[in-house]
C-alpha cells in the first residue's frame, strides 16, 4: 500500500527558480534561501519518495478566466514546463505518476470531492520554482509528481476549511492506492505578500511566524479563519497559504515539523517547512524478565509453543 512519509510547505516565488537557474547559490543575497532548503533536500535524498503530490496554484498561465478551475487534478505521465512570457525554463518536463493520479481521481470523486482533471497541460512556477531547490533534476527529476491546482486568483476561491478537507480526502485517496509507493505531500505559496494596489509590498513577519507555528501545532485555528483574515494579515496573495492547509490536512495529526526557514528579502516572505510522519512502529522490545508479559505477548508465546 502507498504511504505518506511527510509534507513540505514552501513559497513558490518565481525568483526562487530564477535564482537557481542563474546559479545564485553562493550569492550573499540568495544564500540564506538556498541554505534553508538544504535540510529538505537531504531528507528527501534519504527518504527517497517515489511521488510528490503538489497542491499549487496556476498563475493565469495554463488556465484562463474563461474557465478557471477551483480544484483540478493532473492525471498525465508528463507535463511540459509552461511559458510564462520568457519562454519555458531550461528544466526537463515534469514526470507525472498517471496511475496514482487516476486512482486519486476515482477515490476523490467517489468520496464526493468532484474534482476536475487535466491531462498534459503545461505547469508553471507554482510547482517547479521550489521543486528545483529541494528535488533538483540531475539531469532528470528524481521522481514523479501528481499536481493538484487550486484557484487562489479569482474570488470566490475555496475556503481554508475546504482546502483542509481536500487534503484529508487526498490522504484517503493516496493511502488506498494498492501498490507500495512512498509519497510526500507538498503545498506551495505564501507567505505574506501583496502584488496589487498601493498596499503592494505589504508583509507581516509577525503573522508569518504565527502561521508557521499554527500550521504545525494547531492547524484547526487556521482553517477556522476567513479569507478576509488572511488578506488583512498576510496581504491579498497571502491567501495562497490555503495550499499549506491542504498539505497539512493530508498529514496525520501526529506529523511533526522538523525544519523551517524564513527569508524576506524583497516582496514575498519565502518560507519552507518540513513535516515528518512518525516512523513505522519499532519492532516489539523483548519483555524484561522482571515484567509480567502482556496478554498479547502471552498469546503469541502460546501460539509458538
Amino acid at each position, binding site marked *: 500500500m502507498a504511504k505518506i512519509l511527510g509534507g513540505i510547505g514552501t513559497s513558490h516565488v518565481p525568483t526562487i527558480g530564477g535564482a537557481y537557474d542563474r546559479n545564485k547559490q553562493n550569492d550573499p543575497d540568495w544564500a540564506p534561501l538556498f541554505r534553508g532548503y538544504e535540510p529538505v533536500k537531504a531528507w528527501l535524498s534519504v527518504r527517497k519518495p517515489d511521488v510528490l503530490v503538489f497542491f499549487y496554484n496556476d498563475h493565469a498561465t495554463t488556465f484562463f478566466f474563461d474557465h478557471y478551475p477551483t480544484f483540478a487534478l493532473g492525471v498525465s505521465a508528463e507535463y511540459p514546463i509552461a511559458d510564462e512570457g520568457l519562454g519555458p525554463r531550461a528544466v526537463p518536463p515534469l514526470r507525472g505518476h498517471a496511475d496514482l493520479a487516476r486512482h486519486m481521481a476515482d477515490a476523490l470523486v467517489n468520496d464526493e470531492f468532484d474534482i476536475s482533471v487535466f491531462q498534459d497541460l503545461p505547469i508553471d512556477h507554482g510547482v517547479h520554482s521550489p521543486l528545483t531547490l529541494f528535488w533538483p533534476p540531475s539531469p532528470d527529476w528524481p521522481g514523479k509528481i501528481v499536481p493538484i491546482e487550486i484557484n487562489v*486568483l479569482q474570488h470566490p476561491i475555496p475556503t481554508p476549511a475546504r482546502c483542509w478537507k481536500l487534503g484529508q480526502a487526498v490522504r484517503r485517496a493516496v493511502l488506498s492506492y494498492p501498490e507500495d509507493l512512498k509519497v510526500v505531500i507538498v503545498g506551495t505559496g505564501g507567505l505574506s505578500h501583496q502584488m496589487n494596489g498601493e498596499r503592494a509590498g505589504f508583509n507581516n513577519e509577525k503573522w508569518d511566524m504565527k502561521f508557521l507555528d499554527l500550521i504545525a501545532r494547531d492547524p484547526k485555528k487556521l482553517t477556522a479563519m476567513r479569507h478576509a483574515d488572511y*488578506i488583512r494579515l498576510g496581504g491579498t496573495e497571502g491567501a495562497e497559504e490555503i495550499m499549506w492547509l491542504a498539505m497539512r490536512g493530508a498529514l496525520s495529526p501526529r506529523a511533526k515539523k522538523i525544519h523551517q526557514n524564513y527569508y524576506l528579502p524583497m516582496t514575498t516572505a519565502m518560507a519552507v517547512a518540513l513535516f515528518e510522519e512518525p516512523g513505522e512502529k519499532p519492532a516489539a522490545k523483548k519483555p524484561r524478565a522482571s515484567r509480567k508479559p502482556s496478554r498479547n505477548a502471552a498469546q503469541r508465546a502460546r501460539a509458538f509453543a
Partner: protein
Amino acid sequence: MNPQLKGTEELQGTYLFDLAASAKALRLNRFLHGLTAAQNRANFKNNPEAALDKAGLTAEERRMVRELDWVALMRYGASFFCLEKLGRVKGVSNPEMVAGFRGETLEEFLKTRNVPGAR
C-alpha cells in the same frame, strides 16, 4: 458581497480580483494571458497596434497597455498575474511593477526592502 471577503473593503490600496473585475476586464486579460505564446509576443513586439486591434481592446485599454500604466490597469480590473506576462515582454520586473502600484520609483521601493539586491 462574498462573506469570506467582508472586511477587505476597509483595506486601503487593495484590489480584489473577483467575478465582476474578471468580466469587466476579460478581453484585456485574455490579450495579456495570450502573451504566454511566443507567436503572440512576436506579433505584439513587431506591430503592437495590429496586435491590440486583433484583441479588440477599447481605446482606454490600449492606452493603458501602450503606456504600461500599471496603476490604471490594476484599477480597471486586470489580474496582476496577467499583467506579469506584459511585464516580462516589456522587460519590466515585478519589483518595478510593485513600485509602480505604490506610486514610487524602483529606487524608492528598494529602499523599503531588506535585501534590495535579491532580484
